[in-house]
């Protein structure tokens, strides 16, 4: 299966430079959010340990090392 002919238009935009930059920015933002959920202990969120403690159970049950 080295060559596949799509029988209809692919449902995806062309990967242009603009899409790549947008994607890079989006991924960076998402990883920051993931950091806040999974690892932050107040350094980034500036909420002290509040967010860290609030999402404590979620971290454990999602399998992220916690303490």
């Amino acid at each position: 299966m080295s060559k596949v002919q799509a029988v209809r238009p692919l449902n995806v935009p062309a990967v242009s430079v603009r899409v790549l930059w947008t994607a890079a920015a989006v991924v960076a933002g998402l990883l920051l959010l993931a950091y806040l959920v999974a690892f932050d202990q107040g350094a980034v969120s500036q909420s002290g340990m509040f967010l860290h403690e609030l999402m404590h159970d979620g971290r454990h049950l999602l399998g992220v090392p916690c303490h």
Partner: protein
Amino acid sequence: MSLTGRSAAPTYGAILLRGLLAGLIAGLLSGVFAYSLGEPKVDAAIAIEEANSQAAAAPAADGHSHDEEDPLVSRDGQKGGLFLATALYGVVMGGLLATAYTLLRRRLRTSDDSRAALGLAAAAFVGLVLVPWVKYPPNPPAVGDPSTINQRTISYLSILVIGLVAVWAGVLASRSLRAGAPEWLRLTAGLAGFLVVVVIGYVLLPNIDEVSDTFPASLLWNFRVTSLGTQATLWLSLGIAFTALLSRLGSRRAAAAEVPEAESVPV
């Protein structure tokens, strides 16, 4: 590639929006799973943690407050916060899945968009959940030495990367075969490529076992299986929801563009 076919394609933004929405749905569903099946185990583990710290004459204040007298967030608050955590985690994974789909769709050798999206979700589940779960199984409260948290976090992030690289290696290996290779050979090559990377990662990364002799084995096991179930719920519902939203987007586009043009895609 025909330019007229291009105009019917949805934008990255449209795909991303559907990924984020699918992630929110999946995060909330996995939150329901974790709340109903996981919280009793977390409660039981915290009870053991508190009993341990009371048994110790001088309880160490490690800044982690669920065993302190006046916690920053109550246990009920943490159970509500569970949904916030899984929802945000789902949104992140949904956004990453949508981005991966946008960037990799043309390289996936199927003409079926749904198979492509579900395949990516399955690959992410294997790389980001199954591979890490075997090497570093999740631990409930009361298990784990707080002083090694940085080491364990680095090891965990490393195994996430290794999991994704392993899946990628498996795909490369199965594609390295000649065009007419039979399916069983393709599968074997893919598995071999995957396993080589996984084994190297498992051997190189440090072993971590901080379970005390007194922690109940059944509770530990049940917690770990429930944690895997939480992630399985998240990725299964994320894959299905993203695929569903994507196919609705596709059919709407197809209806808008009256004559969908055939497009050949060299892979």
